[in-house]
């Protein structure tokens, strides 16, 4: 599996650390209720097909990426910087 890092180009999967579903970018507010935090921390769409997940380019540029992949075929469909995600605006790089 190769991931097209926007900064570094197409790189081997081994350079990246997988974090999980990109729901991690949609952090609830501190005073949101238990259900919102449960949905964020534990519940997952877990699609069989196209998914969006977060990978950290540890052995490269050190950027967090949102990678679009197909979980049935392992095809990588694209990647963008997590910073480009609307919810991530204002987060530190």
């Amino acid at each position: 599996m190769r991931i097209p890092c926007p900064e570094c180009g197409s790189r081997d999967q081994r350079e990246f650390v997988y974090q999980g579903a990109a729901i991690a970018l949609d952090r609830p507010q501190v005073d949101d209720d238990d259900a919102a935090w449960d949905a964020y921390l534990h519940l997952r769409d877990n699609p069989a097909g196209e998914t969006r997940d977060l990978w950290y380019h540890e052995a490269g540029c050190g950027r967090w990426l949102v990678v679009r992949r197909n979980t049935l075929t392992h095809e990588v469909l694209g990647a963008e910087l997590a910073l480009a995600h609307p919810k991530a605006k204002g987060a530190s790089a």
Partner: protein
Amino acid sequence: MTRFSAWEVLKKGLSGNTDWTPHWRDADPRASYDVVIIGGGGHGLSTAYYLAKNHGITNVAVLEKGYLGGGNIGRNTTIVRANYMLPGNSEFYSHSLKLWEGLEPDLNFNVMHSQRGQIALFHSDGQRDAAVRRANAMINRGDDAEMLSQADLRKMLPYLNYDNARFPIYGGILQRRAGTARHDAVAWGYARGADSRGVDLIQNCEVTGIDIENGVVRGVQTSRGAIRAKKVAIVVAGRSSQVAAMAGMRLPIESHILQAFVTEGLKPCIDHVVSFGMGHYYISQSDKGGLVFGGNLDYYASYAARGNLPMKEHVMEAAMALMPMIGKAKVLRSWGGIMDMSPDGSPVIDKTHIDGLYLNCGWCYGGFKAVPGSGYSFAHLLATDKHHEPAAKFRLDRFQSGYGLMDEEGTGSQHNLH
């Protein structure tokens, strides 16, 4: 259905094995059932068997989208053990191991259960302390555990590399009652036992919808028509999220791929199950002679039932580090099972918020050895609406509440840590 016995095998053998008959019916769906079980794998079939045997509930259908036992029970490494430490897990797997020990006479079916012993290695003084603690927990639960020194191990497992610079072997925990079983036979034995008690096993029948009215389950839609049911049980580890979504539920599950490997058939050389936790590696030898071994998750969400090369390389490196002799064997095949990974690494056997809809999922890497216990406890829940004591802590709401988490590895209740 013919009952198996030495006499029957001899008699049928003398007549050229031509007059064996099918051991279960290929049933067509009826319009309604008391219980519909979605999923004809190990857990679904054992649930159906114990519903019929323990609770007398036989108006039951098992719906399988492919063929019986075609999912994860056909894609594992067949290890049976009860070496868990945390309350919740330990009583459950202890109960399951006891069921394994009586399974063959109970089912009148040879599941090739082989209590050859499992050895979990440790590599430092600190790990020895942790191993003693775990072994004591196992003994307290009523299961067996023995501490082996390096000298003991050298006699039993002369082929290990004891002087590995990074992970020298200090000793191991031996559980003599642990071992392996023939995975397919477990599915077949339960299928045969359920069918003979009147359960309909319906293959090529994919569930496409779950009918719910006013918070009460009414039945399912399938590729072979609608089926009404008083109770519906979801037992589809590997595809839990998709089936639960039909009931509008999101689960605390992320599906991951776990790879396994088998070599060409060899003469007997590995007599036990050996676990090398530090290398994320474990191995046993099948009765056909193949060395069956596996590693850790590939660590990205996947339903592909096959993995990528980096984990293959890691597993081969661990194999060579632990037992250099394996370098002479040729790998014949590799495959991947799809693991229902829960945040704390432990399973769910519970009711849902929908009346009559029950859920069995989240088996992580522990599903095969759990097959008897899971079916037994899930059948109890389905029949009585009460949790069965050994599985009473497998609650779905423990993640939201934070109460009763079973984080066996002590790494935290978070999706990417198990």
